[in-house]
């Protein structure tokens, strides 16, 4: 019971970053709160709680979705990927040098993030976008990013980052 209001829990079973997870949750619990506070996956950030900023974007059955606009119970039976699931394999012990997905590497190389708060959501959208559109134009990239608000970067370097990620993925690079 994450929200702790005394209401009876409803069982939810999801495949979360490749692992089967079953929990009992309050019916009104937001999926974003379930992931962050129930499962400790704090990489998914919450910026507006009304589905506009895109910071909480995750993949539900491979499609980008706003975790703040879904209830945890609606995720029952679904496959969910968060930013923590983008990087394959367990995280190494050191804080500064974890394995990076090619999209993450591309974002680092192009300075596609500043405060990094909106970044996890953008990475998830990018993963789905590049799977469908492996060789995008800059205009297509901008369109794909238009559901995300970033207040730091002015988007230019994010567009560079997505373009660079497409190159890395096309060159067949896996996670480092």
């Amino acid at each position, binding site marked *: 019971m994450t929200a702790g209001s005394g209401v009876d829990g409803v069982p939810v079973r999801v495949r979360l970053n490749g692992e089967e997870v079953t929990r009992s949750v309050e019916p009104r619990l937001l999926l974003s709160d379930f992931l962050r506070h129930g499962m400790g996956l704090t*990489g998914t950030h919450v910026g507006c709680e009304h589905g506009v900023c895109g910071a909480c974007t995750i993949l539900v059955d491979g499609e980008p979705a706003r975790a703040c606009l879904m209830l945890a119970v609606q995720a029952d039976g679904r496959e969910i990927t968060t930013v923590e699931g983008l990087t394959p394999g367990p995280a190494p012990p050191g804080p500064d040098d974890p394995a990076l997905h090619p999209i993450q590497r591309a974002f*680092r190389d192009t300075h596609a993030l500043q405060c990094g*708060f909106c970044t996890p959501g953008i990475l998830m959208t990018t993963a789905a976008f590049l799977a469908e559109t492996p060789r995008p134009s800059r205009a297509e990239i901008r*369109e794909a990013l238009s559901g995300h608000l970033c207040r730091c970067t002015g988007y230019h370097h994010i567009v560079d980052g997505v373009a660079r990620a497409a190159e890395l993925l096309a060159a067949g690079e896996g996670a480092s």
Partner: protein
Amino acid sequence: MLGTRLPRLEDPRLLTGRARFIDDIEPPGTLHVAFVRSDLPHARIADIDVAKATRHPGVAAVVTADDLGELCRPGPVLVPPPPVEGAVFHARTPLPLARAVVRYQGEAIAAVVADSRYVAEDAAALVGVDLTPLDSVGDYERALDPDAPLVHPDLGSNLAARVRQTKGDYEVARREAAVVVSRTFRYDRGVAAAIENRGIIAEWDGGGGSLTVWDTTQAPIPVRNGLAALFGLPESRVRVIAPFIGGGFGPKVMFYGEEIVVPWLAMRLGRPVKWIEDRYENFFATTQERAQTHEAELALDGEGRILGVRDRFVHDTGAYDSYGLTVPINTQCTLLGPYRVPAYDSAFDVVFTNTPIVTPVRGAGRQHGVFVIERLLDFAAREIDLNVVEIRSRNLLEPHEFPHDHGILYQDSASLTYDSGDYQPALEEAARRIGFDGFDDERRRAAGEGRLLGLGLACYVEGTGIGPYEGARVTVEPGGTVSVATGVGTQGQGHFTAFAQLVADELGVDPARVRVVTGDTAEFHWGTGTFASRGAVVAGSAVHSAAVTVRGKILAHAARALEVDPTDLELADGAARVRGAPDVSIDLGELALRANPLRGAVEPGTEPGLEATSYFGPAAGSTASGVHAVIVEVDPDTSLVEILRYVVVHDCGTVINPMIVDGQIHGGVALGIGNAFFEELVLDEYGGLSNASFMDYLLPTATDVPDIETAHIETPSPLNPLGAKGVGEAGAIPVAAVFAQAVESALRDGAPGLEILGAPLGPGKLFELRRMAPTDAAGAHS
């Protein structure tokens, strides 16, 4: 490493979701707070009934102003007003929780503490607040009307401050002028809209008598000192940690009531207490910026040379003026721009209104001044028949005129003096890059195809890197890594990387081996914070200075260890080695061990370790500058404006990391584009806000902001050892001015008399302006 495009060292943590932001932190047993806020902009609090909420299952406490006791007193004025002769300043600062009266919509009235945020919000809805509406003033232009309702009745008027600064004799300038242009300009309100809202977590260790506070603040050390004073604790028993912060942009430098209430609750309840602001709250409870109205006049000779400027403006500070005069003083000073202005007469009134509190937001009032002077120059250029580049060129300060003292006071109470600059090459470069010379032909060609293209170009300066000071400690660890601690908070500016680059250069180590800690008062507790584009300049200079001292210690120890003269040594690859004989070397880690002996005698006066702490306090700020240029296309039917190209030529002195600087500029321009065209807080005449969501308050998206072409000119600042000038706010400053000029240029043929005298413009307002312009095609058929 100085000047290299080093990828950021903090990025892997951020990219994998492992960086800890405020809401990622939750000590065991944490209670959660929801605030009850005023729905009305001005009201008497007749009654607060907390009984029902208190009885709600899961609720630990419901508190109001009365419960706070002694703590419920007005906060300090955070920035003392500069000592301008004759200035009036009435300080009125908010209480942590409102008592008796609320003066703006969203002012906090009660705090509900519960097992979860969900339950806290349930119970907040059960708090019965009986508000008796009072007459309110939402329109700042009417705040000084004789019949205006009073925000602080004890003052007898809504005047918060009145300041006049002058140089030369404007009346003489005006008499001698060949051309005088005057206009009224309005620059409206906006929010900073960091994607992460504010948040505070407090944990009280009653046994140890120590308080730990995690806080999304740009200024952790002042918050620590403020809390220690309020709670009567030694400063050393209060630790404030600013974790990774999801954007600051100014408002997170404030000291808010929530920052008092949440720690107080933790101390009172003996459990960790957490509050995370939601987006709706952020639109009211986090400070805002911008509303000003200027009546300005520019006097020029027949060749377009500025003889003088007169400006009278009203600045809306909202319900309180806790941040002093920083914003309007910035406006007053920045209006002078990169120009030679022999006579200046500028006076402003700051007024209280029943609206959310106004404090600096990226740009911090500078954009208003730039808008006024740049627009006046545009209108003057039309009258004298000069082009927009030429009229600016004729007025730019020349390199031999630096340092240039304007003879008025800046926000840091120092004289407004430009340290260095070279403005003409920046103007020429911007004009060249945007294609100014051939543009009129291009515009006509496009017009023939029914497309409305326009070009805009504007100059600006930004006073950056002000005092008082920052400090840093640099330590070589026994493992050979280097630790750096500084007091400023960081909100995405790349401090972890830029400071590592500075240290890496001095100590000859890989920047990846330099670990930077910012914003934790247990690591470093002297300093003021991140504001006024000062992190790299002031804290960077302190880091540099500490690294220089550590370098000296390394060389002394290594010389003894290797039995050579220090001057024969070089530092590279994490070791001290003999020049020309690189195999005669000793690792920095080994030296650090030797510098901390466990036994034996040491020479008197020596200090252990390879460590140094240094401070840097500039006598005055360094002045960055630049030129922005844009090409826009206006949709003839909808009046939507598309930005086709955007060029920034910028001078922030020595560039530490060009990639980070570009990023700062891009982000500033995007915020400026929002300010210029998309973002507008819609406040009614009573102070009620009607668009408090991202559905209705429009931030620019990736399809609204173009790629931004940047070029750097470097005139190093003589005021700090790095030669650096700040860059954090520059991008945002001139955007509304270039934008307005460009849109007018695009509409020149259809609506030659159309003038844009305010920001934000917005497609709706532009449509109206075009409709009102008599020769406009849109007006003819509407």
